[in-house]
């Protein structure tokens, strides 16, 4: 043990990540060696690998441990978020298989990239050093850049990929700059040491706050929080729907989890400083999310704006700077993920004459031609708008409760008013499906078994959440408590 002093660490908490990374590389080898034969089985193996990873996470990731020389921390918070990430990625894969076939882009690289992005995201939520944080973020981002442009035949997808890459690179640069400022003025990258030096340094040097601002700006880009949201609608629209589903569900959750860890661990003593920034981001995101969506005619762009708005609500919970706030954010993101999965299942069902269509008006008359789909999407939209008795309401309830608890009254009022504006465009989808007459019918029976299953799960979650909300709130509470030890 002592011979390898620098290797003196315990690998057990890393097992899930290692397993998933090895699986991804294994699939790459299999895919390259066996070509077409492997194409059919790799999706299922990928699902299996994720399932195994989930099991491993539940076994080893919840115990408190800092490994890799202070780079990686496993605790209940990271464990919970990792489970959510795995769940979201599994849902994405379930949604993607049939869709990729239909679009003739079912290459095995898709699955490898998705798994690598998942590894990156899992490292992100466990990172407790600015260096490991940056590397995890880049692993995730680079995989996602490629995924955005995955449909090589489509110029729109290529545009989306390039746009995402260029702006993402800029954001990474800003983050690095911020990290270097923080390092320069505190002499440390480690969260624990940073916390200690923040405690001693009063007042904290302006440059550190400056660095934090840059770090936050970079993260806000990954979160697609306004005013760093510019890429979101274009990438959501241009990328293949399967990839958009992934973007909408998982990376934001990982980035948000990372953001909360940074803000509540090393920078917990700078709450008054960063709270202003978070409030600004929240307000901007809610405005952009609410008003930007009104004029959209493409459903993927609409969902993009809706996701910006939802990040705005989540940031309200962050701004509350309390355990209740983190709890609310986690619950909100969990519910948002569940709703989004179902929504994308319906978007994938929007095909006419074998081709995918994306205009909102294409849904006209759906309540007559395919009532089940229409009711499912209707329920999901009311839930997104935060109307009780659906799950979305409880996410908002917790968020606003945290805001009121932190006496952020103006922010809370702003949030509820924005949610009313947002209700307008969610209602528009309901209106198109239920009140308008169809001009052209959508194809019937587009969805595959896994897609139907995910849609059913999503709707069931949204409908029945009310019966036992405690079941979920208990676990988010445990996760939140892990980030707020003894405070």
């Amino acid at each position, binding site marked *: 043990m002592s011979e390898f002093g620098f290797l003196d660490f315990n690998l057990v908490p890393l097992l899930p990540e290692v397993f998933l990374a090895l699986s991804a590389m294994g699939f790459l080898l299999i895919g390259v060696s066996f070509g077409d034969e492997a194409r059919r089985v790799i999706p299922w193996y990928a699902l299996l690998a994720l399932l195994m990873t989930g099991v491993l996470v539940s076994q080893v990731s919840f115990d408190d441990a800092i490994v890799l020389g202070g780079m990686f921390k496993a605790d209940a918070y990271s464990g919970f978020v990792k489970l959510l990430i795995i769940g979201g990625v599994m849902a994405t894969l379930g949604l993607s298989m049939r869709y990729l076939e239909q679009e003739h882009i079912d290459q095995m690289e898709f699955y490898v990239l998705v798994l690598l992005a998942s590894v990156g995201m899992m490292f992100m939520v466990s990172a407790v050093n600015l260096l490991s944080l940056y590397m995890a973020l880049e692993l995730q981002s680079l995989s996602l850049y490629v995924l955005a442009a995955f449909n090589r035949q489509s110029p729109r997808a290529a545009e989306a990929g390039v746009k995402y890459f260029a702006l993402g690179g800029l954001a990474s640069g800003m983050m690095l700059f911020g990290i270097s400022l923080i390092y320069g003025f505190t002499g440390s990258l480690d969260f624990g040491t940073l916390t200690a030096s923040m405690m001693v340094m009063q007042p904290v040097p302006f440059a550190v706050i400056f660095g934090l601002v840059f770090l936050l700006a970079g993260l806000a880009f990954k979160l697609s929080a306004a005013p760093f949201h510019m890429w979101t609608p274009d990438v959501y629209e241009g990328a293949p729907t399967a990839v958009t589903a992934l973007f909408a569900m998982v990376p934001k959750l990982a980035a948000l989890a990372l953001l909360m860890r940074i803000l509540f661990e090393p920078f917990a003593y700078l709450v008054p400083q960063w709270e202003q920034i978070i409030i600004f981001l929240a307000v901007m995101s809610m405005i952009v999310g609410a008003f930007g969506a009104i004029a959209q005619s493409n459903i993927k762009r609409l969902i993009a704006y809706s996701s910006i708005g939802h990040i705005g609500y989540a940031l309200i919970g962050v701004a509350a700077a309390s355990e209740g706030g983190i709890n609310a954010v986690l619950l909100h993101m969990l519910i948002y993920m569940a709703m989004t999965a179902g929504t994308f299942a319906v978007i994938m069902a929007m095909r006419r004459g074998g081709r995918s269509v994306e205009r909102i008006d294409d849904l006209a008359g759906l*309540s007559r031609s395919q009532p089940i789909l229409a009711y499912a999407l209707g329920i999901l939209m009311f839930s997104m708008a935060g109307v009780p008795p659906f799950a979305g*309401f409880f996410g908002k309830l917790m968020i606003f409760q945290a805001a*009121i*608890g932190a006496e952020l009254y103006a922010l809370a009022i702003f949030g*509820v008013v924005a949610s009313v504006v947002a209700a307008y465009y969610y209602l528009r989808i309901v*209106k198109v499906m239920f009140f308008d007459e169809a001009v052209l019918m959508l194809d019937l029976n587009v969805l595959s078994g896994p897609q139907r299953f995910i849609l059913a799960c999503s709707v069931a979650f949204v409908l029945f959440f009310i019966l036992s909300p405690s079941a979920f709130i*208990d676990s988010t509470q445990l996760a939140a408590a892990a980030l707020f030890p003894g405070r």
Partner: protein
Amino acid sequence: MISFPILTILTFLPLVGALVILLFLRNDETGAGSARSMALVTSLMTLAGALILMLVFDPANPDFQFKEKMIWLAPLGIAYHLGVDGISLYFVLLTALLVPICIIASWRSVETRVREYMIAFLVLETFMIGTFCALDAILFYVFFEGGLIPMFLIIGIWGGKRRVYSAYKFFLYTFLGSVFMLLALMVLYMQAGTTDMTVLMANPVAPSIQTWLWWAMFASFAVKMPMWPVHTWLPDAHVEAPTAGSVILAGVLLKMGGYGFLRFSLPMFPEASAAFAPVVFWLSVIAIIYTSLVALVQEDMKKLIAYSSVAHMGFVTLGLFTATLEGISGAIFQMISHGLISGALFLCVGVVYDRLHTRDIARYGGIVKNMPRFATLFMLFMLGSVGLPGTSGFVGEFLTLLGAYQVDTLIAALAASGMVLGAAYMLVLYRRVIFGPPAHADATAMPDVDGREFAVLALLAALVLWLGVFPGMITRSMTPSVEKLVTHITQHHSEQEQAP
């Protein structure tokens, strides 16, 4: 009786019926027929349950009865908590009565998507009864707000020409009002540490923070009521909604606003309620006089009745905020009576609309000759709306004014003048539709009410007369609860005066 969850059954029975329709009935002609029967049976069973509730209800007990409490949102201490007292009992009864009537009224007039229509009505019934039974503020909000969804669909799918606009306006207006209530509930929760309405009602928060909470609640309930000047969604919604939608909107949904004032504003913020009562009084008087004048010039029958609803709700808010026994009893009585009368008036409009497919007053005239039975029933409801002694409308307005005179003579006098205007527009409507020269051949050729329509209208007519002659039937079990509320409010005022 305590262990038997009668309120849960009442609340969720319609939902079960809706599920049966959704899962077991086919989406075709035969399915439509069975959906109608199934919906009627379910709602009649709910009505029977509500009648049983009335019989076993102890009228001498001012507290909540048939309480049920279960842990629901444990981390926040929010519970599934139901109960009724003498005030909510009659709202539950009114809802349970009007839903089967709506279903009968839609028997022939709704022919598209019958299955979904019936499901929407039954789901709506669950939300409405739940609102009146809920004893936890968050649960109340869930029911209060959830009702928007089926009503949005009812207006939007089965409504008239401008249904989309009206459905949006209805939804967004009420949603905007309600979210402020949600914030107020959160603040209350932070202050009091509970969302249990019985606790909140018994222990009002400090007067210093009551002001803002009162206004937030007011925003929600005033829109729902609706009070002048936030009433503009109502005429649109009424005009475009299908007949049964208008009946339930005027009959029950508006009452949720008044019920909210009774359960939240008055008991939880007694000091703020007293402080802002003059504001409410003046808004009520403006509503009574202004909307009556507006009603006078309407050419659309439904719009006229919709404006008359705003005026009548003006009496309700006036009565509630007098905080006297007579005023509050009168307001509750007025709400119940208005539920019956305006529901019946919308049904009457539905009767002629089904025949001629227009709501334009000028297209009718002289139909007393071919529709004598209709003319008689319509007259009765018209007189009830005017507040003729002997009808239920009189009792509510009289009691309300009695309460108002104790508080402010000028306001009472102005409100009383509104009664005259009410008589004016209703009589004009009646004269132009029923009497007058028979200008249009098709109007004078309309057949009289058939058995189905007659049965519904006659039942409502009997109730209007019965309550007009024996108002004690309702006030008997209502008074203990109202007395308790009034004592609670006055106690707080006197404490307030003693502690400088």
